[in-house]
């Protein structure tokens, strides 16, 4: 009870902040609405677009340039050292880069493939919503929560003792006498961490792809069926081409999420035992080692990794606009 009473002022301050924010907007709207005639358009633009533009400029554009510039400075951000930070990444952090690359390739492909399989299977079923909800549910769970959930699965005990981890127990039931300590089991521990990401992302892939499959016009499928296409041929010649665009969006969306993956590695291993990835190493360099030069350079590496994915999406979007 006491705990709850102590929490109320916190909610109060949040409510106050929202009230102040809305009151401020109302005043601005009131003033803005007084402009008439030729000034009306510009006034509306400033009021409507101004705040968002200022915030993204301060929060994203300027920081991006500062980070790029900061990646050429030393640990304390005082002296210019050229590309030494990048040399450090490519000389000493190859393991981290390789892990990140494995993550970017394996986790999105696995999630999308499994999501597509489920979407196809579910498309043929009448009672699909319970299965869908349960498979989709991990999306609502935080990476930290997921790490604790999967920590239980990967928990290690001496083989002679009673097992607590589900994976060890299942493997022992299957006849393996000495299961490894999963989290320390290099290099396979990387894949075990990816399983967590796949567990979370499959639901997303499934739901989006399932909607795309339902959007395929019925006459297209019927025409193909009349021509004798069934099973695999129907799938590879009709279904896949019809949902290609969505398939790629799902893949790139998960890739971007994976590239920035931080929470899973941080809470499961903190980057130890050969599982470090760029996003977590960036955090460690900036906030634990206090080497901001290294941290900035790693952030830029992430940035460079995301660019092609976003460019691809923008090009797709422009094409689609052109069609409309």
């Amino acid at each position, binding site marked *: 009870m006491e705990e709850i009473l102590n929490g109320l002022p916190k*909610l109060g301050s949040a409510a106050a902040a929202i009230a102040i924010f809305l009151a401020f907007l109302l005043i601005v709207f009131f003033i803005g609405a007084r402009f008439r005639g030729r000034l009306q358009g510009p006034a509306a633009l400033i009021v409507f677009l101004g705040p968002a533009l200022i915030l993204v400029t301060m929060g994203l554009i300027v920081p991006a340039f500062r*980070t790029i510039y900061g990646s050429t400075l030393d640990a304390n951000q005082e002296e210019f050292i050229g590309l030494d930070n990048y040399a450090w990444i490519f000389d000493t952090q190859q393991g981290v880069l390789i892990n990140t690359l494995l993550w970017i390739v394996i986790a999105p492909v696995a999630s999308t493939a499994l999501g597509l399989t489920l979407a196809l299977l579910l498309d043929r079923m009448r009672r699909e*919503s319970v299965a869908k909800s349960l498979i989709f549910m991990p999306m609502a769970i935080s990476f930290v*929560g997921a790490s604790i959930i999967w920590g239980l699965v990967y928990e290690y005990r001496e083989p002679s*003792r009673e097992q*607590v981890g589900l994976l060890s127990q299942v493997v022992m039931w299957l006849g393996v006498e000495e299961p490894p300590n999963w989290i320390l089991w290099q290099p396979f521990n990387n894949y075990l961490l990816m399983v967590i990401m796949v567990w979370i992302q499959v639901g997303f892939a499934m*739901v989006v792809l399932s909607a795309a499959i339902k959007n395929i016009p019925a006459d297209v499928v019927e025409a193909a069926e009349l021509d004798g296409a069934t099973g695999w041929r129907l799938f590879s010649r009709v279904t896949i081409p019809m949902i290609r665009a969505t398939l790629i969006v799902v893949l790139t969306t998960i890739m971007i999420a994976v590239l920035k993956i931080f929470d899973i590695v941080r809470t499961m291993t903190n980057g130890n035992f050969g599982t470090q990835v760029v996003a977590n190493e960036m955090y460690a360099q900036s906030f634990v080692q206090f080497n901001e030069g290294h*941290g900035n350079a790693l952030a830029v590496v992430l*940035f460079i990794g995301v660019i092609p994915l976003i460019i691809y999406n923008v090009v797709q979007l422009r094409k689609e606009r052109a069609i409309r």
Partner: protein
Amino acid sequence: MSVEAPEFVILPEPEEGNHGIKEAARRKLSSPWAVLVVAIITILWTIPTVGLLITSFRPAADAQNTGWWTFFRNPAVTFSNYAEVITGGSTTATGIMPYFFNSFAIAIPAAIFPLVLASMAAYAIAWVPFRGAIWIFFGIFALQVVPLQMALLPLLQMFNLGWSIGDIPIFPDLNKPGSNQSLLAGTYIPLWIAHTMFALPLAIFLLHNFMAQLPRDLMEAARVDGAGHFLIFRKIVLPLSIPAIASFAIFQFLWVWNDLLVAITFAGGTPNVAPITSYLASLKGSYGAQLHLTTAGAFIAIIVPLIVFFSLQRFFVRGLLAGSVKG
């Protein structure tokens, strides 16, 4: 845990015409193998969470020395894990509740601020004619390219030391004179601002896509009647955009509630402002072996997003689809 999930809403609705035929074909195609595979995957996907739930109710000794599946042979239920996590007990001074409330105090404003600002911006791009609107739109969409990680250090510097170009202050230095403590330290303000900034690109993109499809006649009729942009926005566009706004609100609330990176960067770990994810991460770090406590803590942390998810699933799904289904 609730399994009574509402039916998914798939947009656009399937065609009405040959519904009966298609339905019959579907039933025939629904092979027992497909059902079996889906059932197996569903069970596999659910088991880890069930394990968490069961472990959180087991006595400490049981949870630490036996697998949770033995619970079915030897069912012993206790609430003391939850009591200990909530009061702090012997593990931490404050328990989980301050962090739980912090999460609400962070996530609710951090969902509302970007939504309001993004709907305003989306309206301007879609319905206030000006040169370069399309470029601003693509520019904002492309800003998703900037990883959070890139903005963390500069923003932290801004909150702590202020920014200036030469002598002109852009963001004031909020340090109390003579001390090294920023006025913003220990408040939610940096978190709200940071989450708002990071959410805007996606929010503007999604809301613009929705608002741009509202009927043009409606806007023109209102304009002929003498309504200005402010009136049209409040009386026409906002009410009509409720579905899109609800979708994004849920999405953003879950995102902020589940976030760890922004939280530990801008809030540190103090019970004054740090959210529940940051508490859980430190609980797992220091008391990882105390499975009965970490699982109880984790369950308290995930119950809120799960309730939001299961009760508002249809909006959440609609939001996801708006973001990624093309054509």
